[in-house]
Each structure stands twice: as C-alpha cells, then as structure tokens.
C-alpha cells in the first residue's frame, strides 16, 4: 500500500529573476500525514500554490494518484481531489458556516438552471440532501453549534477548523493545509492534532505546512524540509529534527 498520492518531479518556478523553487522532488504516500517545514520564505506556500493550480511552474511536473495535473486550473485540481486551506484564512465571511460548507459542495450538486428556476422536486431533494450532508460534516468537525452564524463571527481556532471542514466538503483524497496552528495556544493545537488525526484515519491523506515543531513531530509520519527553494532534508520526524542542516536553516549558521 505504498501508492503515492502526490508526486512532484523536478519542480522549479521563477518570479522575475528570483528562483523560488529549485528542482524540487517530493513524494507523499497515500494515507499518511506528510509535513512540510522550513523557514519563512523557503517556498512552502509557493509549492502549495503550484500543486493547487494557482501558479504554473517554470518547469517540472505534479502528479496526483500518478496522473499528471501540472498546469491544470485550480477548480479542475479541486475536482480531481486536492483540497486546501490558506495561510491567511480565506473564508467567505458574509456567508454562514453552513453556506461556506455548501459552497464547497457546488460541483456535486446535481441540478441545472431549469431545476433552480422552476424549483423542481429534484432541486428540493438535492438541496435537502446536501444540507444534511453539510450538517453531518459540521458535526464531524465539531462546528455544528455555529451552523447558522456568520463565518466571520467564529473564534479564530474555529475559523481554521471551518476552513478545513470546507475543504473536506469537496471530498478530497488529499488535504493540503497551510499553517493551521498559527496563532493557536497549546490546547487549541492539541485539539487540532486530534482533529487532523481523525480526518487522516478516516481516509484522507494530509500534507501540512507548519512551524510548530512539536505538532509536526506528533502528527507526521514523514517530514520534508525546504530552504531557499531547495529540499535540504527528508525523512521521519526524529531524524529530521536532529539533522544539522535543518538546525542551521532555522537558527542561522
């Protein structure tokens, strides 16, 4: 069962004259939680952006489940099974918690314009079933008490959770999370760890960018370290933690 859910081959990207990613090779195994760490500016979010279609790489390839997705549009990649959260939370603030999740179910809605305009039985059935599904997802993610509140009114930690819940609503095979523990205290981080463990054991592979070393150690089975656009170390957390280059990158030479 060592199928690779995500494979990145010789990926490079340049912005103007700056090489943001330099010949990056990375593999995420299916069913695992894979950590991506590195100092600020190392290129982690850029890598995520390329994976999810927001940027096109200058060279190299991205494969999802061994099928090429390099250069696909973000919505196509989302439909193929990668869902993401953002470094700066990007919820739909004027919408309710429920609506945020419903939006992510857009593509699985089996209705067309006629159904909507004439409010057919099919429309009503689909709306009802999707709303139930969304509510179940909110229960699963512990947010159902906020169901009709506006997304912006949630406490910070729960907003992060909502972003993850929203991403899960697209039914992904790979969940790509960008610094979910930023600004969280110990308790929140611990809750987050349990939350992500649960999602993972229920079948979703996770690729996570984080600065919280403890969280990475406890959560991930494999860690990749990025610095100045290059991979400087890869392996199990214990090994990576003790790697000299990694320590230097974080603390300075």
């Amino acid at each position: 069962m060592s199928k690779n859910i995500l494979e990145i081959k010789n990926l490079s990207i340049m912005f103007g004259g700056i090489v943001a990613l330099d010949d990056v090779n990375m593999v995420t195994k299916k069913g695992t939680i894979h950590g991506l760490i590195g100092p600020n500016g190392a290129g982690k979010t850029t890598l995520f952006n390329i994976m999810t279609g927001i940027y096109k790489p200058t060279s190299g390839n991205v494969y999802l489940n061994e099928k090429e997705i390099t250069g696909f549009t973000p919505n196509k990649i989302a439909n193929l099974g990668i869902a993401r959260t953002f470094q700066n939370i990007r919820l739909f603030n004027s919408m309710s918690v429920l609506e945020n999740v419903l939006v992510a179910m857009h593509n699985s809605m089996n209705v067309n314009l006629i159904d909507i305009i004439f409010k057919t039985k099919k429309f009503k059935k689909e709306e009802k079933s999707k709303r139930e599904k969304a509510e179940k997802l909110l229960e699963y993610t512990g947010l159902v008490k906020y169901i009709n509140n506006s997304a912006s009114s949630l406490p910070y930690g729960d907003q992060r959770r909502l972003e993850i819940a929203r991403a899960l609503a697209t039914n992904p095979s790979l969940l790509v999370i960008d610094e979910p523990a930023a600004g969280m205290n110990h308790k929140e981080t611990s809750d987050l760890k349990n939350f992500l463990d649960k999602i993972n054991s229920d079948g979703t592979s996770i690729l996570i960018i984080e600065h919280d070393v403890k969280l990475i150690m406890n959560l991930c089975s494999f860690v990749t370290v990025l610095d100045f656009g290059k991979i400087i170390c890869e392996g199990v957390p214990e090994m990576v933690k003790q790697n000299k280059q990694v320590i230097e990158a974080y603390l300075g030479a």
Partner: protein
Amino acid sequence: MISKILPFHKKLKFIHGLFLVIIALTLLPFVIEESFGRSWLRIFDYTLIYVLLALGLNIVVGFAGLLDLGYIAFFAVGAYSWAILASPQFDIHLSFLVILPISFFIAGFFGVLLGAPTLRLRGDYLAIVTLGFGEIIRIFLNNLDHPVNVTNGPVGINMIDPVMIGTFSFNNKIVIFGIQLTNLHFYYYLLVICVILVIIICQRLENSSIGRAWVAIREDEVAAEAMGINTRNVKLLAFAMGASFGGVSGAIFSSFQGFVSPESFILIESIMVLCMVVLGGMGHIYGVVLGAFILVILPEIIRSVAAPIQESIFGVVLIDPESLRMILFGLALILVMLYRPTGLWNKKNV
C-alpha cells in the same frame, strides 16, 4: 397537535396576505391615475421597466460582484430587436410571444460575447471595458443606417408595434364599468407580472448553489476556485442572465414607447441603473426595487416642482429642472457613497 394547526394557520395568513397584495396591485393603476393624473401612471410604467433593469443588473453586480458600466447596451439590444422585428422598418411584424424570447436570447448572446474575453479582468478594468462596450453599441446603433439601413441611425425607429394578444392591441382603449383602460394600464399589468416573475427567479437563483457560488466569487474568487467552482463559467452565467433580463426589459420598453433612438441608451443610463443597485444595497432584491423607484420617481417629482418652486421664491427659474435633476443626482451619488455606501437598505446580517 398544535404543530399540525400552526402551519395551516400560517398558510392561511400567507394566502390572505397574498390576496390583499393582488387586489392592491390590480387597483393601483387606477388609484395613481385618479390621484395624480395620467402622466404619473406613465411614469410608473417606466419605473417598472427600470425595476426590471435594476433586477437584471443586480444579478451581475449585486450577486456576482461584477462591475458593469455598460449594462444599458443589453437594454438597447433588446429594444432594437423588438423595433426591427415589429415595425415598418423592414415591415416584419412578429408577435410579442415570439420576440420576447428572441430578445432574451439575443441579449444573452451579446452578454456571452462581451463576457467571455473580459470577465477575467479585475474590477475597475471590467468596469471600463463594459463602459466601452456600451458606447460601441450606441455608436453602432447610431450609424447603422448605411450602407444597409438596419437601425435608421440617429433618427431611430418609430411606429413600433405594441404588444398584441390575438387581435387585441395594447394600444386599444376599452371601457369597463365606466373606467377607461389604455395602453398605460395594459403595459402596467404586463410589467407587474414580469417584475414578479423576475423577482421569483432571482430569489430562487439566490437560494441555490448558483447563488452561493456567485457570492463566493464576489467574496473571494481565489478561494471559490480552490473549492472547485468553475469561476469563469459561473461569472459568465451571471453576465448572460443579467443581459437577458435587460434585453427583455428593452423589448417591452420598445413596444411601450412606440419608438427607439440611440439617445435612450447613453452612458448615464447605465450609471443610473448601477446606482439603483448600489442604493438598494447590492444583492438585496427588494432593496434594488426600492432603489429603482427612488431614482426614477424622485427626479420626476423634482422636475415637476423645480420650476414652480423657483418661480415662487426667486420670481424666475434659475436652474432648469433637467440640470437641477442631474446636479442633485451627482450630489446624491457623492453623499450616499460617503455616508451610506452599503445602500439604504442593508442586506440582513447573518
């Protein structure tokens, strides 16, 4: 037990209220005509046309957040579709049941034509491009009288057919119970029915996956796309639907007025409709209807009292009503944006 009675009770109340509204709407044109005169009924009819326009633009600007400064072009396309297909211009006289869907689709087609290459532009650029498009349409309408006379140029097309149901023309006058019904009344009923239909359609769109996708795109297009929404197609749909509604509104306008000329489709009209949407609170259906009413009726009131008031105070008309209307409009734009940018009537805060 109680839960069985309550819904029934609510239903009864609803039907009761609906009945009252229908009676009120049916009697309204006569009330207006009696209290204020025939010209105000005509103004009311024009207001309803603008309500349709505002509702259409509300889909584009209010729901999807796409800035369109050239919306009147679709109105023009619809209007000229009717004018060309039901007038002496080419001596074609199709019935309104045929032309209405035609104007719907032609305007929608132009919406797709304009939207396809431009909707990926960001806010201000899209605004200017749509403005340019509106002007291009107007210039073409103004000049397509040679080499082939399609639009009859700056003079416009007149003697446009009114709506006909069977052999009954809306321009006929009939007398029922001693009350005279004119085209003002017939068009009123047609327009009210259209407005109600459009409102229902807009509400259904709003509360569907499409409506939510529009709001998501308006809020954060990048996030929306990351959730799997094909933002390009969804935006195009908003644009095309808005255009189609504009086209239908234009067709009715054309038959109501009996003539069209490029002068009715100048930039200020697009701006006016945009302001109706902004004033009403972008996205808020009933607010937009209110915005349309305010922006049509208030200036008409100003126009009718501006001269007499000035004469009684100053003895002479200092500022002609038209200029006064425009100056007040300009001032209103500035003041509303400074003090009440979310519109007079806020969308409910979730």
